[in-house]
């Protein structure tokens, strides 16, 4: 008897909840954004259109089904452009400067001016910089344990070019994929992480 009542109450609650759930607030939110946001500087309203990766991650709370993620990661991986000259390591000193800069792609940035890597915003990197973020993992001594062989170079270059090729809903931008960093800039960042001379890997 008691159980029935409980069930009935639960069913009622569910119905009430459903009435709310039925509304697609996500769609309403997207429509609202498209109505309210205006192009400014280099930031056009096309930026509000989700691409494939964004669409999947947004619809799954950054937790897509494994098979879906694997297939899209593969697409992203195949689109990575590695340097034609085959050299993946540049100058770590330049890399450090790029890692420090948080500029690029905002409506207050100018078109055509090379952006920064925004790396320290989220990662610990060289030990001399104590002002670093923690959204990403620590990259201090990244090359120390991994060496700087061709495989790790290729991985790091690819990861910076398009982090989503390795983890579909990663918080990290796809710097090469969207043209936020140039090939040379990414090479310099690879060197910052892997060059044995880089302070990242020195004692």
């Amino acid at each position, binding site marked *: 008897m008691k159980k029935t009542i409980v069930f009935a109450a639960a069913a009622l609650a569910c119905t009430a909840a459903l009435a709310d759930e039925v509304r697609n607030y996500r769609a309403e939110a997207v429509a609202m954004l498209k109505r309210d946001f205006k192009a400014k500087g280099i930031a056009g309203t096309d930026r509000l259109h989700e691409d494939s990766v964004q669409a999947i991650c947004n619809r799954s709370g950054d937790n897509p089904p494994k098979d879906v993620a694997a297939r899209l990661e593969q697409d992203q991986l195949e689109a990575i452009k590695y340097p034609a000259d085959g050299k993946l390591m540049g100058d770590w000193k330049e890399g450090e400067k790029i890692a*420090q*800069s*948080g*500029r*690029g792609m*905002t409506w*207050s*940035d100018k078109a055509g001016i090379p952006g*920064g890597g*925004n790396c*320290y*915003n989220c990662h610990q990197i060289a030990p001399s*910089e*104590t*002002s670093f973020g923690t959204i990403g993992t620590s990259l201090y001594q990244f090359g120390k344990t991994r060496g700087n062989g061709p495989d790790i170079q290729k991985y790091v270059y690819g990861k910076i070019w398009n982090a989503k090729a390795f983890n579909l809903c990663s918080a990290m931008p796809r710097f090469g994929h969207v043209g936020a960093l140039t090939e040379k800039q990414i090479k310099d960042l690879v060197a910052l992480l892997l060059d044995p001379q880089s302070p990242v890997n020195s004692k």
Partner: protein
Amino acid sequence: MDALRRTLLKGAGATGAIAAAMAAGVLRPSQVLAADINRAAFEAKDIAGALKAAGATNVADSTAIAIKAPDIAENGAVVPIEISSSLPNTVSLSVLVDKNPFPLTSSFEFANGAVPEMSLRVKMGQTAMVEALARTADGKHFIAKKEVKVTVGGCGG
């Protein structure tokens, strides 16, 4: 001439001439007030120059001067500093930042019961030493220092 003005004039190197002029009756105290700003000290580009212009020679380190300031400032534009002196008869406290383009930030004279203790906020362009200079009634100068780190904040964009 009240006690405050006397200590002020005694300390400021550039005011020697003014004091002499006053003694000679050329200047009246009311005119002196306008000339109180020790421009030379504020325009000095390094600590040595600022101390010299402030008339601070033979400056001794002292643990009787306390500086309360952050080890790392949240923002270099607003660094909270608290300075105090337990030296007997402290009549003046100044705050300097060694790496600033003009190290002397401010200088305060105390009289009539004012405790030699000040809190204020200063700008620091980079990691530097904050130095607190105290002058006692007998014209002696003492100094204490504390490093404050200034870091990059925000998204950098």
